[in-house]
């Protein structure tokens, strides 16, 4: 039983990190209906920049995190400007192929020796790990930090989206680009801001991931990226609470599969869930069904 609860706790931690990535997917999908395939690689870049920040350049951890978030926000904006904007009103698949290309570019470019290098790197802990025993349950300070940071970010995001003008612009663009333009919203800027926020969240997720699972390499973003995408679809893509809910479910599924079935099966089960959700409830758990009009 305690073993089970500990696994649930581990799954919760993993789910929170998936939530940070899934938010970027879901926000971007909301405004441009594009599966931003490169998002998982922005997460990887964030993890590397955070690692360089606190472990190589010796910056204090919060500063390293901020640096990673700011750089990735910029990266996200640049990606959108170069690779997605020319294809915004082209067929959906064209932009998706472009996104796949950007994803491969980030992975292989990062693998070059003068960039991040192709090898695995072990991330030193920026602070010692402390374990507390609470009612027979082991809780680490990393879990607490992850929980608090993610909670703060979710509250900030909620405020941004529902209480500010920028957030209102984002919600408008999500409904209709042309109508938003007629209402005086600068669609291009709003989309850039969405990419910036989503990428910054991914970078934060990357740094936290590197601290919690201290090993990073240029291809580390693929699987968390795909699973976070699955989470976003599971919760209902375009819906922010849905992304968090989906991510928490994915975290549990993955951890419990590794613990009780087989760690090799966890990817297969995660993607089996994706296919089943797409088949039986393509709009996700919290989504509404829409009828297609001719």
């Amino acid at each position: 039983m305690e073993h089970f609860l500990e696994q649930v706790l581990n799954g919760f931690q993993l789910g929170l990190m998936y939530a940070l990535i899934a938010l970027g997917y879901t926000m971007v999908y909301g405004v441009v209906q594009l599966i931003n395939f490169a998002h998982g690689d922005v997460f990887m870049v964030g993890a590397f920049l955070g690692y360089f920040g606190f472990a190589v350049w010796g910056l204090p951890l919060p500063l390293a995190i901020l640096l990673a978030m700011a750089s990735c926000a910029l990266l996200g904006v640049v990606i959108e400007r170069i690779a997605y904007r020319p294809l915004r009103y082209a067929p959906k698949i064209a932009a998706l192929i472009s996104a796949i290309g950007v994803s491969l570019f980030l992975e292989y470019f990062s693998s070059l020796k003068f960039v991040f290098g192709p090898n695995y790197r072990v991330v030193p802990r920026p602070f010692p790990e402390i374990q507390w025993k609470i009612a027979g349950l082991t809780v680490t300070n990393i879990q607490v930090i992850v929980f608090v940071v993610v909670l703060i970010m979710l509250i900030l995001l909620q405020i941004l989206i529902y209480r500010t003008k920028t957030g209102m612009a984002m919600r408008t663009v999500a409904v209709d680009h042309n109508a938003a333009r007629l209402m005086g919203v600068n669609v291009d800027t709003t989309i850039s801001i969405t990419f910036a926020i989503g990428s910054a969240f991914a970078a934060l997720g990357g740094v936290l991931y590197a601290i919690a699972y201290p090993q990073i390499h240029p291809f580390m973003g693929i699987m968390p990226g795909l699973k976070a995408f699955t989470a976003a679809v599971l919760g209902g893509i375009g819906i922010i609470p849905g992304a968090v809910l989906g991510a928490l479910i994915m975290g549990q599924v993955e951890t419990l599969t590794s613990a009780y079935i087989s760690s090799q099966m966890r990817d297969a089960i995660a993607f089996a869930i994706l296919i089943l959700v797409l088949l039986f409830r393509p709009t996700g758990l919290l989504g509404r069904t829409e009828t297609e009009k001719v």
Partner: protein
Amino acid sequence: MKLSRNTLFFFIGSAIFYALVKIMQFNGILTPYWQLVLDQALIIVIGALGLSIIYGFTGQFSLGHAAFYGIGAYTAGALDKVYGNGNMLFFFLSLLIGALVAGLVAFLIGLPILRLRSDYLGIATLGFGIIVRVGMENGNKLFPVLGGATGMSGTPQLAQFDLIFILALIIILLVRNFIFSTYGRACISIREDEIAADVMGIDTTRYKILAFVLGCALAGLAGGIYAHRYPFLHPASFDFLKSFDFLLIVVLGGLGSMTGTIITAIGWVFLLEVLRVVLGQDFIDWRGVIYALILVVSIIVRPQGLFSGKEFRLLVPEQLKMATGKERTYAGFGN
């Protein structure tokens, strides 16, 4: 049987190509290394034509093509490894079974997931590809002969250039006849507008599944040949990066163009090898970067690909050219 003029030219062209390769073999220009590259290119042509049917002509976006290529490779390879003993008849049988198994899996998975549209279908097939990869890595627990994550070797290497070339020719003709048949036209109409096709009385589900199964069976056949030409099979050779390879070939060549798919497939395989020779050791590092840049730049600069909707006349049956008068596009976007 009366051959049309274009078909005749197709066979003459193929014969000239074959003769050139043979001459180069005798002169020693075509070293065994480049022979291997050429064989690889022809194998990729077969697999890419499969994806061309699925995505280029029917418009069903698949990111899991390499999974079927892998299923064919493992099925044919393992069968021949265990029962074959270098028997040519059994070799063909194993290729056929490999293609059939890939087609059967495509049917079972296609039946539910082909209801999905565009990018969702892509993600679902990508997920399926990852599941297949996990299956390959753990397949040795059920069948030790598959080798699991360490890879499989020991398949008799029976596929040689002559044989691969003839198979590729047969497949090109088969795909050509499919595209220019009623079935092909139904598939193209689905790509252009699924709802309109449905309204016109085309059983869209049936044709989508037909195209998907046929395309995946071709991938399985290509995989089976690959298993008999390259002695070592590894799950990493069939993951989604390989699927992107096929996708890149079909998109770069131009949607709805066999000519584009065939030329790009051969050109792509040779380009990578030439780069390897020119750049040497650095190439290994830069390969992925160049690859990704080509993908992004080509989709932005020329989203319709090189030969979209255009075919060499060799690849068009005669009567269509007569019927359409000035029309120069055959199966591409209708403009």
